[in-house]
């Protein structure tokens, strides 16, 4: 019974350690403790029953011959032994099933542990490190401690990538990020429970009045794309909203040729969709003809479907599609930096007071973001570096 349990626990935890990259040291310690406890009776049991299976299960080859020798001098009859083994197996099976389920659900309820997607695994790692601040301390010479961020869910990609590469450079510092939404993040900042409040919009006047300082770290741009043969290259924001609400259904209504508009968008929960709908003020009133679950899929569909319109991050637009101008403004980095292009929003990491008034850790964080490494991270996640 113990053997089965130990075996499965090992397997299970190894699995978790593999998938969830940095899944709490705590968990790992637990595993070591448990297997240490379990291994003792396991060995006793092996010698008592003398089952070959157990030695097979354990990789220790030295032990393999021992039970066999003992077997020959064993007193029990074959039948009895077999019976007892079968019984043990049965009990083991039931216990293991119960244990494994408990373990599975135990971990499952611990945030979002059962995920397979890369982004959420990263979140998990970050969540995990929030509870485990001591594990990685004191390995770096100079700086150690925790920087806590909270706020916009849209900034998840950026925050995850940034904190990961930051912690690689400064192993003594732990960065924890919670995704509570822009408003909630700034509230946490105002109340002093976090060092940095993330917001995927400009700060409101009352938030600035509360002492929050707007530090724009990156700019998110969204391009509206259509297929190559479409004649309409400029759409007003109003018309764009109408297209996505399903009020305008044909390109001829916008001065194009007589071609139905195929409205393509992203799935609910996507950051791009979130931003697009928010910026056009059409949240939850869109009538999509297709909801695709990746940027690449949107690009491919728009490129191959006559009359299609879609939206993607600005950085992935290629020459298979046409990027549409909005209110006469082309979706380019220059226009976005100049503040002319509608479908862009700042990613703000707000601090209470200027950065220069912050502690060394937070200063290091902002220095890192402004460094070449930090800029690379921003580019990698498809964002624009502010001037």
């Amino acid at each position, binding site marked *: 019974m113990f053997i089965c349990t130990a075996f499965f626990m090992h397997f299970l935890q190894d699995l978790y350690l593999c998938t969830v990259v940095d899944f709490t040291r705590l968990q790992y310690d637990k595993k070591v403790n448990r297997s240490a406890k379990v291994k003792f009776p396991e060995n006793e049991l092996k010698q008592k029953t003398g*089952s*070959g*299976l157990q030695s*097979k299960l354990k990789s220790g080859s030295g032990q393999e011959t021992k039970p*066999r020798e003992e*077997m*020959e001098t064993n007193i029990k009859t*074959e039948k009895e*032994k*077999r019976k007892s*083994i*079968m019984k043990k*197996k049965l009990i*083991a*099976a039931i216990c*293991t*099933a119960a244990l*494994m*389920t408990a373990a*599975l*659900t135990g971990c*499952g309820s611990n945030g*979002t542990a*059962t*995920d397979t*997607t890369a*982004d*959420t695994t990263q979140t998990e790692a970050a969540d995990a490190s929030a509870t485990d601040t001591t594990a990685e301390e004191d390995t770096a010479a100079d700086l150690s401690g925790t920087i806590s961020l909270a706020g916009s*869910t849209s900034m998840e990609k950026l925050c995850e990538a940034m904190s990961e590469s930051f912690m690689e450079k400064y192993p003594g510092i732990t960065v924890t990020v919670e*995704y509570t939404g822009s408003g909630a993040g700034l509230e946490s900042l105002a109340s002093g429970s976090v060092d940095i409040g993330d917001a995927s919009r400009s700060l409101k006047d009352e938030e600035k009045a509360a002492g929050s300082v707007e530090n724009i770290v990156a700019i998110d741009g969204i391009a509206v794309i259509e297929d190559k043969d479409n004649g309409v290259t400029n759409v007003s924001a109003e018309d764009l909203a109408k297209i996505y609400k*399903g009020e305008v*259904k044909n390109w001829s209504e916008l001065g194009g040729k007589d071609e*139905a*508009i*195929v*409205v*393509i968008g992203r*799935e*609910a*929960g*996507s*950051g791009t969709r*979130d931003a697009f709908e928010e910026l056009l003020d059409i*949240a*939850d009133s869109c*009538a*999509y*003809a*297709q*909801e*695709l*679950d990746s940027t690449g899929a949107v690009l491919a*569909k728009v490129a*191959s*479907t*006559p*009359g*299609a319109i879609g939206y993607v991050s600005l950085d992935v637009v290629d020459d298979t599609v046409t990027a549409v101008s909005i209110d006469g403004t082309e979706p380019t980095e220059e226009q976005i930096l100049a503040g002319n292009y509608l479908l862009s929003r700042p990613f703000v990491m707000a601090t209470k007071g200027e950065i220069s008034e912050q502690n060394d850790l937070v200063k290091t964080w902002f220095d890192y973001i402004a460094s070449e490494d930090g800029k690379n991270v921003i580019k990698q996640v498809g964002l624009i570096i502010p001037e």
Partner: protein
Amino acid sequence: MKKKAIIEITAKCIFTLCAVLAIFAVCSITIYMFIKGTPTFHRVGVLDLLFGTKWAPTAENPSYGILYIILSSIVGTAAAVLVGVPIGLLTAVFLSEMAEKRIGGIVRGAVELLAAIPSVIYGLIGMMVLNPLMYQMEKALYKDNPAHQFTGGANMLSAIIVLAIMILPTVISISTSSLQAVPQILRSASLGLGATKMQTIFKVVIPAAKSGILTGVVLGIGRALGEAMAINMVAGGAVNIPLPFNSVRTLTTQIVSEMGYAQGLHRQVLFSVGLVLYIFIMIVNFILLKARRKGVGEA
């Protein structure tokens, strides 16, 4: 002598362990799905969840109705079976009753290859070939209908066609072997009584093999219901009433497409969607078990 006994015991233990592993996997998956899936039914409300028609998980006032999604799964599967089973069954009849050795071999090889094609390939071909064709059809059909939302060909019908082709190999191979298992005496007796070959096939051979054929159909249903990849690529993915030219989302694609970024209750609801799918599959398997038992009883 004793060495042999050890080997015997060892082997037995290994076999038992393997069997236990399978049972254990099924049990833990079942328990896990129920533990993760049921709480949301309380939080959202069973009726609101199962019979709500509005899926807006990220809205200010989120609503989590999955009725259209469930219906899309059911309609898609049913239609695929309606299209696929007759074709599959007749192919099976051809293979077991009529085909010459050489032609039969070619058809059989083709069917086996069809079964081995990964679903993403079906999806790719559906997306590149079927969807544009469907769009042409859609344009022609809805030319004068201003209320229709054009989907660019990614619709229910594409999904049904892809699914129908995907279940063919399952239906064909299981039906063929059950048709071939019908004793030759039955055929000889029928022909001897003056029945034609067609009468023999449809009145004697197929009824005699019906439990096997049913097994094939049920397995086909299971495959169609559980297919995610291909459907995700051809069906459009917007939540709509399952009409032929509407873009639809099924239980499987619902999970696939939204699990990536879903958070909080939205994520938990996706587990409930998984549970609903799992219950459907359990029902299908239960029917399968019944069908097989009946088959054994008759034989």
